[in-house]
């Protein structure tokens, strides 16, 4: 622990112990506890390192006038300290433990009513319960009973915490079977790291297990909890649902982690109650009960086991319940939990498909109980339950179609047909002859919720077996949705998403061309003018995504779907959208343009007038658009273009190359001076590509060591999104190993001179292109990610020059100079350089700019120190424990020493 923190802690404890003194804000105590927890986890003994804590605790727990939040903190801290056996003994000897956790004491003081005291008490116990002595304490004080009572506390947080502790007690102290011990030993052999942590005592678990096996305390606690579960699972009256619910949650928690001896004990005890609960058919308890049964089932080893058989029977009963709304929830739970036994899964599938079968009239189920069918039909007549049931049903259809054929009552393609029928009904396009039940259909016509669920299901069904047979119908339905004037923006968005997905799996797009082209183009044009920006944005995003969708019938024949369907109509549409009033749409348009033009870039095609116009428009957006999103997208457009150019194996046409390089220069100068931090960051990514291009083979091993792996250069089809956080891993310099880079084999001396010149030329070209200026400007930027990125790149550049193995090469390279303007970032850089006495500059006669040697500047900027600072969090100084302790003290001083600081109380209102 920091010496300064140790020095401040006693005073902080004094402040906290004095009731009435102000705390800096409501998070301080939690952060303080975080710090202590971190120390304890790192192996420190809190009692040894911070002896003042003992005095603090003993003072506070007797002071019932103390603020409840401080008392709560103290209870948690006490538990944390008692997590180690030494700490526990010490606290027990001082009688602190008993006093702190004495509920009667808090009740008498009228503090127990405060939920934060109860939370402190529970969490303190939870921290403490890491060793047998703590368990003994728990049993001795009969705290299990209190914890069971707190299970139904009025506060959700208290009730949930109580459940967690109860589960922790049984699971943590449970005896391990010999198999488990062996497995654990094996695991530890592989990943053994000996950190003696007093609260995470995994290494001692085997010993604990042995001790626990015969522990009376453990048996007593297990009995108390399981008996309580047995009694409390079945509600005696309506008011007890909360109790049952909590008990079911606890049981699910326990069963998920319990090993055989405990699991068996638990199941044996509660089986009768579970049976009663299943029979009672309480709707409110269906889901938690399913959770318990499915968790128990997932642990079942063999059908021969009586308990397992009973659990399986109960699960069957749940899937036979008479209430259709509960039934469908239960069936969905079976699928969600990935339960896989043919009887239950097949049954669940049948239940889930029944509403679809009824409404669409598609025969999805060959056999089904008439009684159940009738009751579902009745329920579907009510609008609310109809929508709710259908949504559950639709959500599960994709998973259903992927199940083994034995589980399915019909071929997967029939399910796709049913979903399509349903979507038609929802949009009012279904022919009346094909509708199953006209009464129920009225409930869903035009319903956005069902439409969204249906479209999501359809999107996921694109990969279902047999789905391809329905391709044509799918496109028809989706186009209808896009055309429908009543479709709301979220429905339109989902329709587009489904369309992209289905087009991606369509192997023969040419066959669809006749069907799609005309309608799609028309609807896209219409939606580009929609009054809702959300729709326009989704349309533009769709066009962009379409640009990236390629299909191939033969290995050597890749077809771009966008080109195949829309021909050359996309780009003019997108150019028009560049003027959209909404910046989100403008940004998406720019991104879509990049995705659409990617193919022509990759093919190295000559630049067209249209492309030149686009470039002019984009540069105009970069300099004039008032919103960051669009400007960010512009920089990313050029980054993608340049990236395509650098990785292209085909020769780039000279017109294209010249236009690109001219644009890049403008982008670098404008982008680095932008007011938006992400524009600057994206500009640095472009600068990084330029560095990479300019210094191939000469670059030393990458020294920006925080880039752990070098990701592949992004393909144009998976361009980073225009709003993605600038990641250092998005575009990185091509890595060359040291061996490859620095080997200058004998006999290649002839190349040396040219290499020396190459380096100088490269650095010179980087200066000319504005890369160096962009990097230097970024280095002194007030936005940390920008500074960090620039610093890393500058270091790489410096080291690349520095690592030249011949003095001549170095000398040539060091002659390259760059200009520092007299204001802005130039002045900042000059200030740094001026601190170095040996820097040389050449002043301009025209303005107050100066020229400095690039290499010299890079050496003098203190890049390594700067990097060390920038790689840390921007708030690392002020979010440190020391800072926290200082804040607690200064707040206290402000309140106790009038005249030290402003008289006005800081009002905690809003931000």
């Amino acid at each position, binding site marked *: 622990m920091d010496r300064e923190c140790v020095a401040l802690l006693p005073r902080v404890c004094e402040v906290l112990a004095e009731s009435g003194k102000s705390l800096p804000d409501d998070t301080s105590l939690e952060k303080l506890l975080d710090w202590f927890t971190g120390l304890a986890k790192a192996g420190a003994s809190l009692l040894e390192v911070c002896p003042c804590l003992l005095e603090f605790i003993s003072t506070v727990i007797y002071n019932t006038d103390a603020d409840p939040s401080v008392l709560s903190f103290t209870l948690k801290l006490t538990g944390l300290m008692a997590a180690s056996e030494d700490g526990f003994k010490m606290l027990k000897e001082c009688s602190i433990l008993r006093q702190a956790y004495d509920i009667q004491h808090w009740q008498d003081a009228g503090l127990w009513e405060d939920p934060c005291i109860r939370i402190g008490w529970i969490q303190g116990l939870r921290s403490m319960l890491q060793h047998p002595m703590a368990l003994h304490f728990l049993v001795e004080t009969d705290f299990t009973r209190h914890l069971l009572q707190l299970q139904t506390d009025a506060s959700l947080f208290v009730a949930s915490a109580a459940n967690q502790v109860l589960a922790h007690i049984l699971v943590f102290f449970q005896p391990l079977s010999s198999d488990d011990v062996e497995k654990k030993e094996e695991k530890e052999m592989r990943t053994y790291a000996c950190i003696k942590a007093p609260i995470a005592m995994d290494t001692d678990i085997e010993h604990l297990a042995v001790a626990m096996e015969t522990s009376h305390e453990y048996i007593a606690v297990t009995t108390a909890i399981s008996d309580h579960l047995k009694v409390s699972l079945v509600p005696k009256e309506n008011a007890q649902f909360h109790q049952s619910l909590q008990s079911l949650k606890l049981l699910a928690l326990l069963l998920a982690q319990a090993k055989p001896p405990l699991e068996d004990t638990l199941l044996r005890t509660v089986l009768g109650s579970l049976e009663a609960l299943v029979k009672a058919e309480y709707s409110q308890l269906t889901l938690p009960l399913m959770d318990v049964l499915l968790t128990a089932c997932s642990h079942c080893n063999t059908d021969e086991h009586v308990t397992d058989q009973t659990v399986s029977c109960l699960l069957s009963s749940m899937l036979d319940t008479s209430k259709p709304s509960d039934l469908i929830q239960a069936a969905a739970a079976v699928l969600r939990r990935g339960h896989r036994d043919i009887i239950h899964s097949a049954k669940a599938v049948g239940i889930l498909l029944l509403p679809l079968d009824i409404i669409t009239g598609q025969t999805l189920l060959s056999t089904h109980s008439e009684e159940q069918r009738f009751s579902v039909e009745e329920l579907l007549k009510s609008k609310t339950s109809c929508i709710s049931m259908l949504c559950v049903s639709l959500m599960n259809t994709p998973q259903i179609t992927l199940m083994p054929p034995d589980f399915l009552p019909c071929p997967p393609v029939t399910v796709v047909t049913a979903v399509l029928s349903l979507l038609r009904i929802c949009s009012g396009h279904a022919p009346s002859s094909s509708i199953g039940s006209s009464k129920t259909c009225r409930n869903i016509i035009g319903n956005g919720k069902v439409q969204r669920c249906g479209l999501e299901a359809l999107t996921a069904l694109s990969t279902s077996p047999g789905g391809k047979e329905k391709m044509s119908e799918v496109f028809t339905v989706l186009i209808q949705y896009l055309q429908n004037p009543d479709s709301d923006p979220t429905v339109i968005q989902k329709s587009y998403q489904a369309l992209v997905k289905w087009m991606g799996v369509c192997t023969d797009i040419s066959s669809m061309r006749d069907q799609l082209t005309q309608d799609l183009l028309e609807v896209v044009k219409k939606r580009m003018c929609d009054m809702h920006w959300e729709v326009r944005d989704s349309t533009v995003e769709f066009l962009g995504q379409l640009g990236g969708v390629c299909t191939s019938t033969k290995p050597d024949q890749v077809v771009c779907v966008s080109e195949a369907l829309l021909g050359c109509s996309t780009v003019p549409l997108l150019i028009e959208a560049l003027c959209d009033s909404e910046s989100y749409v403008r940004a998406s348009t720019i991104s879509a343009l990049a995705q659409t033009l990617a193919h022509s870039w990759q093919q190295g095609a000559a630049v067209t007038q249209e492309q030149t116009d686009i470039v002019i428009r984009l540069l105009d957006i970069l300099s004039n658009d008032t919103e960051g999103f669009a400007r960010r997208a512009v920089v990313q457009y050029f980054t993608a273009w340049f990236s395509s150019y650098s990785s292209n194996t085909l020769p780039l046409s000279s017109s294209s190359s010249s236009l690109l390089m001219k644009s890049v220069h403008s982008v670098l100068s404008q982008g680095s001076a932008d007011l938006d931090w992400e524009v600057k960051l994206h500009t640095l990514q472009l600068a990084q590509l330029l560095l990479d291009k300019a210094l191939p083979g000469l670059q030393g091993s990458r020294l920006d060591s925080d880039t752990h792996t070098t990701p592949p250069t992004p393909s144009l089809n998976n361009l980073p999104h225009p709003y993605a956080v600038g990641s250092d891993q998005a575009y990185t310099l091509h890595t060359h190993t040291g061996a490859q880079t620095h080997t200058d084999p004998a006999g290649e001396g002839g190349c040396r001179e040219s290499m020396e010149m190459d380096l100088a030329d490269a650095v010179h070209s980087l200066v000319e292109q504005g890369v160096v200026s962009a990097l230097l400007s970024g280095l002194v930027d007030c936005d940390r990610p920008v500074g960090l990125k620039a610093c890393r790149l500058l270091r790489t550049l410096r080291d690349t020059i520095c690592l030249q193995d011949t003095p001549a090469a170095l000398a040539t390279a060091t002659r390259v100079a760059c200009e520092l303007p007299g204001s802005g970032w130039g002045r900042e850089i000059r200030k740094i350089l001026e601190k170095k006495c040996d820097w040389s500059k050449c002043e301009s006669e025209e303005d107050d700019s100066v020229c400095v040697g690039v290499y010299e500047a890079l050496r003098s900027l203190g890049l390594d120190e700067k990097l060390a600072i920038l790689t840390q*969090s921007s708030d690392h100084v002020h979010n440190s424990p020391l800072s926290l302790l*200082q804040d607690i003290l200064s707040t206290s001083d402000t309140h106790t020493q009038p005249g030290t600081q402003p008289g006005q109380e800081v009002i905690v209102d809003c931000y």
Partner: protein
Amino acid sequence: SSLRRLQADSRSRGDRKNTGNSRVVYCTVSHFFSFFFSLQGAGQDVGRSCILVSIGGKNIMLDCGMHMGYNDDRRFPDFSYITQNGRLTEFLDCVIISHFHLDHCGALPYMSEMVGYDGPIYMTHPTKAICPILLEDFRKITVDKKGETNFFTSQMIKDCMKKVIPLNLHQTVQVDDELEIKAYYAGHVLGAAMVHIKVGSESVVYTGDYNMTPDRHLGAAWIDKCRPDILISESTYATTIRDSKRCRERDFLKKVHETIERGGKVLIPVFALGRAQELCILLETFWERMNLKAPIYFSTGLTEKANHYYKLFITWTNQKIRKTFVQRNMFEFKHIKAFDRSYADNPGPMVVFATPGMLHAGQSLQIFKKWAGNEKNMVIMPGYCVQGTIGHKILNGQRKLEMEGRLSLTKKLCRNNNNKTCSHQGSESNHHLLDVKLQVEYMSFSAHADAKGIMQLIRMAEPRNMLLVHGEAAKMEFLKGKIEQEFNINCYMPANGETETVTTNPSVPVDISLNLLKREMALGGPLPDTKKPRTMHGTLIMKENSLRLVSPEQALKELGLNEHQLRFTCRVQLQDPHSDSDTLHRIYTHLKSVLKGYTIQHLPDSTVMVESIVIKLSSSAEDPNTKVLLLSWSYQVIDLSYSQC
């Protein structure tokens, strides 16, 4: 239509336990993990406003805020308390956001894009427009703090906003067939709204943050006399009667002016939108009036966008701004210019608005570092700063700030166990001490209703129950007492995570047929009067979510049913030596004597009739003294029949 709508008030009279048709509104209030408990006013919580209301079977989330004081998952509400497995879409019917402050909307993209809520989200048009700006602004701060995980991206913010359905003021929006919402003006910030949520006859009003007094650019909150079952009100200033905002504004202008006059520079750290624009208007007007020349800068580049929105949503501002809009738009600033970082070094006075608002990173921090050493300068903090920021430190009077950025051996001051100051050589550190000499001022410009305002709103809305949130426990307790005393209604103040259940007695509207009313009137009944409830007889038909009281004949006709008469029969044995006819006569005479006022007939076919009750008599074949009485009666005279039996 032959139907006339009347309200059949089913409110209970007398003992509440006897109310057969009362229903229950579950109002779960959970400001997740935010603590109301505090010491001397500093422990209040700002953040994670997130309230779950269950009303008439509908679940509605009110606000979805974040806490800026944490860097981990604790900054967001823990949605697993609502429902596990991320099935929020199934559970929630809608989410309503009251305004764009991050403690009310900051967790929304996390909830919709990361946890997976795909249902409707409602907020006003200005809130929808401004929310992404603040979310972006905050995202930048989190990116600045390295090691951030589990945080939303720009794309997520956009995708979330695409799900938002905008609300207009006073427009009733039908979420589904049963749930409707209506927004009311709340003041506080541009676009802030209170919302009236109604399911059937039950309703809740949620205020969000609101202000009952108009300010320089916004009007006062207003709501209908909608008499909700529950009014959920914020109570930030639960016991405070705040000084007028004018005083604070005057003070602010005075301080800025004095600093400028002495040649100093003024830094005002702000978040991108909201308070910044309010203060800009203030300074702009003042500069104009005083003909001041010192430059005012806005650093973020967002000025234009912000002003664009303020212009766009001019109808949401106050009357004065709306009136003068044609001559001069208050948000077209003449004196406020965009800031370039090089200006910070310019000599002479200036005022700079810079983000972020808590001085924890970025431009505001950079300028602060430059200006902190000069006592002529001033920093004005117009809002609250969380612990762990420089804003927080300077507001608590710290004048020596440890700053990152210099590799040096530093002497650090500390206090030893004996509370004496000592010095020691700190280990090699990347930090240095910044001597803060500039003046530090705190001026809260946030506009919340004070105690008086809260009482005023209660008077306006006339709720049946009151629920206080977003405040400090002790202060809320005081206000609760006042409310209960003055309005004689229940006032609740649940702690975070606690569920409050409020019982309501809803009015169930029933349509009554005109024919039935006419028939009642023909029988001499009074004219229908909604203020004088009375009993009416008829057949109640429940059809397609409506209730109608009609005459039995009409009900049969409407439902296409045939009338069937139900008769009850019973057999009674008695011992009587007389002949059958004598016995029957004796029965007739007896009935005549005991059932005065009833029509009793002895018919020639040896039957006696009492109203519709038919009595026949026969003797047993085995024993002539044993008589068998056969009784038959209809449902209408069931009481009489039983008494006779």
